[in-house]
């Protein structure tokens, strides 16, 4: 574990930090070792990860399976604790479940026995928001994700893309400051995915969220992010960070055909391939 007293003992550092906004998420020399029954079965999922993410940024973590990108996300969510190093969220060391984040995974985490509107309102119920305010906020966020008219539907009656939007609505309604997404659109068809990308960017730009988006799809990462963090395997580690230069707001459809975009994409692919020569992934392999 890290040194919890680190920051408090250095008042000068705190003062200096006031001059520029402090990163909302900071990982310092973070490692994670998963142990099975004994040392023999332990394996190093993550090694010496240093990463700081500023408030309001859209950051994509990219890499092949087993590179530890989801482990980083789960650490920020507070579902996993680092075995080495320090993870700070909003200046404080992260302990237990992080209730400042919204968490969306590839899997469906809607409650199947609740209709759409009651799924979306659940966080507000937990937080004791009044029925009237609840109804207003739920209606507005359901409209934002384009599901107006489907309030009374059960999740089983919605398409995969609609369920994804419902999950987005359920997460946005309680206004978490950070959105953690773990391959959220993996199971959605290409056409719906474009809609969801647009929607996500639109919501991010309007709400001033910080977004950490895990994907194995480099193109998706480049289309969406301010910064792409590339992970490698064995052990999981950061192999490259790339600032994405394209202006906001982005037109993700025309961006795909942009020459500069194509160059950046293939440059990143080469870099990824060079650092993962043994893992056998190749351009387009996972699309």
């Amino acid at each position, binding site marked *: 574990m890290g040194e919890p007293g680190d920051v408090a003992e250095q008042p000068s550092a705190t003062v200096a930090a006031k001059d520029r906004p402090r990163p909302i998420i900071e990982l310092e020399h973070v490692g994670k070792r998963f142990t099975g029954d004994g040392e023999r079965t332990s394996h190093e999922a993550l090694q010496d990860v240093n990463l700081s993410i500023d408030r309001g940024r859209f950051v994509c973590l990219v890499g092949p399976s087993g590179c530890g990108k989801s482990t980083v996300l789960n650490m920020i969510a507070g579902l996993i604790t680092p075995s080495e190093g320090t993870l700070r969220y909003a200046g404080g060391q992260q302990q237990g479940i992080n*209730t400042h984040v919204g968490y969306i995974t590839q899997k469906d985490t809607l409650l199947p026995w609740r209709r759409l509107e009651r799924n979306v309102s659940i966080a507000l119920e937990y937080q004791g928001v009044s029925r009237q305010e609840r109804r207003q906020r739920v209606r507005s966020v359901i409209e934002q994700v384009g599901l107006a008219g489907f309030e009374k539907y059960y999740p*089983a009656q919605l398409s995969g893309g609609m369920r994804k939007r419902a999950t987005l609505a359920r997460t946005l309604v309680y206004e978490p400051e950070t959105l953690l997404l773990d391959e959220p659109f993996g199971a959605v068809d290409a056409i719906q995915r474009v809609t969801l990308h647009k929607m996500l960017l639109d919501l991010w730009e309007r709400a001033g969220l910080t977004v950490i988006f895990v994907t194995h799809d480099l193109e998706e990462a480049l289309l969406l992010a301010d910064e792409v963090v590339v992970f490698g395997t064995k052990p999981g580690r950061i192999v490259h960070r790339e600032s994405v230069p394209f202006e906001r707001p982005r037109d993700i459809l025309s961006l795909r055909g942009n020459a500069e975009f194509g160059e950046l994409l293939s440059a990143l692919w080469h870099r990824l391939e060079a650092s993962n020569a043994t893992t056998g992934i190749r351009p387009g392999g996972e699309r």
Partner: protein
Amino acid sequence: MTTRAERGRRPPGSRQRVVVFAGQVLIIALIFLVWQSMSGNPQNGSPVNEFLFGKPSDIWLRFVEGIQDGSLPAAIGVTLEEALIGLAIGAGAGIVLAFALSLTWFGRRVLAPMVFALYAVPRFVLAPYFIFVFGLGLWSKVALVGAVSFFYAFMSTFQGALSVDAELDAVARMMQASRFQLVRTVNFPSAMIWVALSLKQATPNAFQAAIVAELLASNAGLGLVMSSSENRFDINGVLVGTLVTTALAILIYGLVQLATRPLLQWRSTPDADR
């Protein structure tokens, strides 16, 4: 964009349902018809011995007779009472205990395995003991029915309470759900499928338990109708008891299905406005 609602699983055509039902009735009628025509006194050359296998027309007469003198409705009432009280107490206790044990580590790891071990005790073997303790009347039957339905409810509910999806749990906690809210909104509803299933399984078995206890020793009920008919070599009386019990079990099963449907509505409604 098409939704599953629009694609809609079409409810099975009502015409098809009529054909299915008519076919089933026809087959049953045919069986009774063959039975009726072949059954008789073996000394007159009938292939089926009516003293051993009964005869549908005589079963019917015996049934009407029982209804008219009031003995059959009284017996049905007694058995129903035993089965339903036992089911309510046994299944209720099973559901509550399963939930309670699922909530704490001690309950899950120390107590629940002990309850599972009790499942190995053959319940019907307990019938004489219950009669010894609770006497010939209602409560010895209720005890056996309760012991039988308790395990159906406990096993399923416990399994259901533990089968909550880990991601669902994590997401709810990120949304600041309290322990109680988590149980109320996630654990409890996700166990409901299992509870409903266990009630459906327990119902016919509850009847079986009531009848077995009555057959063993009783002063009322359908089991007594059967055992006393048997003592008089009245095979038609035994068959009346059997058929009435079967009909009751099917009827109650249907009612349980109807009663648990709202719990499971979300699984299979093609129509959201219902």
